[in-house]
């Protein structure tokens, strides 16, 4: 901070806001340009999410106990939660796609929670990450829809329950909303994660001023609680929307 203040920059001495610095992607070892294969903080925190997944879902359930331990309960709870979601929202015939939705849900929820650790990097706060997942969902659901229903998949946009005169207009709206899906799907998650973390960082910067610092700590605590909630809810929303899209692909007729 002192070095920053001593610089010729016109930044304020006490309050230095760099709420976006936490989202910087940088090489883990040494310096240099970030190539596609460079081991970066993205790599580290994604790897940690895989480690956490293995701990919860594989190590925790290794005893295969009939009466589950706490760790096994968490694994079973996650399994039951997503499985029920897929079955209830997308239907019984969507169960074969359950591992894919489970993969997305577990990755997002673990990344979100790992991102809540101080000094951590939140991989899901980047649109590059969420957009890839949203595009994968969008493309696979669209391909699946045509593969399962052929041209009949287009009846998704032709609302037979509406008056005939309205149908072309509705079809246009439906098509637009269909193609906007991956945009909203990805920005919702990345935006939520980024906003919460940036707000916490802003409050943290205020802690530098002695007079406001108690309020700042309270505000950080409150935001942290909210972010814990958001972390789970956004993973849930991402997964349930995937289920909804999957349902549209399997049953395009309204």
């Amino acid at each position, binding site marked *: 901070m002192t070095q920053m203040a001593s610089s010729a920059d016109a930044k304020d001495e006490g309050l230095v806001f760099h709420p976006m610095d936490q989202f910087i992607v940088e090489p883990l070892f040494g310096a240099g340009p970030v190539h596609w294969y460079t081991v970066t903080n993205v790599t580290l925190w994604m790897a940690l999410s895989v480690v956490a997944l293995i701990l919860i879902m594989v190590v925790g359930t290794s005893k295969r106990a009939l009466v589950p331990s706490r760790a096994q309960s968490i694994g079973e709870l996650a399994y039951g939660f997503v499985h029920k979601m897929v079955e209830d929202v997308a239907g019984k015939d969507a169960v074969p796609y359950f591992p894919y939705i489970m993969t997305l849900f577990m990755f997002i929820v673990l990344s979100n929670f790992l991102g809540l650790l101080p000094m951590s990097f939140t991989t899901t706060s*980047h649109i590059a990450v969420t957009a890839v997942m949203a595009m994968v969902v969008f493309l696979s659901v669209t391909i699946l829809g045509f593969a399962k229903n052929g041209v009949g998949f287009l009846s998704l946009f032709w609302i037979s329950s509406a008056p005939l005169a309205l149908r072309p207009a509705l079809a246009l709206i439906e098509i637009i909303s269909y193609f906007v899906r991956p945009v909203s799907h990805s920005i919702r998650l990345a935006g939520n994660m980024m906003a919460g973390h940036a707000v916490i960082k802003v409050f943290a910067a205020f802690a530098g001023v002695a007079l406001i610092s108690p309020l700042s700590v309270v505000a950080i605590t409150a935001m942290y609680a909210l972010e814990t909630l958001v972390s789970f809810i956004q993973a849930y929303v991402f997964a349930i929307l995937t289920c909804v899209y999957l349902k549209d692909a399997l049953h395009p007729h309204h």
Partner: protein
Amino acid sequence: MSIKTDVSASTCIDGYGSAIGMPQLCTDWASNQIFWLVVTLVAIFFVLSRLALPRISAVISERQGTITNDLAAAENLKSEAAQAEVAYNQALENARSEASRIIETAKAEIKQELDVAIQKADADISLKAAASEDAIADIRKDALTNVKSVAKEITSELVKVLGGKVDSKTLTSVINKKMKG
């Protein structure tokens, strides 16, 4: 936060190591993120689909099976208990009817014996009554003849005292006539 003088050679970081604008919009890093995301998702998918999900689903279905078995066993035991109760009630019913049958026969036997005894007693009584009647008839007959003879004697004595003459035949007929009343 130390001064980095353009170490990362990026258009997204300023000379002080701070982000320029939103790092989310920095396209320089996108390929790195996408590459590692794909690696991570593939890794998670394989861990889940090869290890975790089959195991958890097996554990859950095994638990479900155990619960179903236990419930079925409980149902069996319950029906067995119900059968035992039915058998018990049946036995109780049988014992009751047996007991009442025994009581019935005992009553009938007693009644029969009683009837026989009463009949015998009645016969005895009627026999004795007949004997008594005979005795009474004899006594009455005796008494009657005695009365006749006493009356004859007294009458003859009276007649003698009064100075009459006693005709035995007349006396007898008179007395008989009087006694017939």
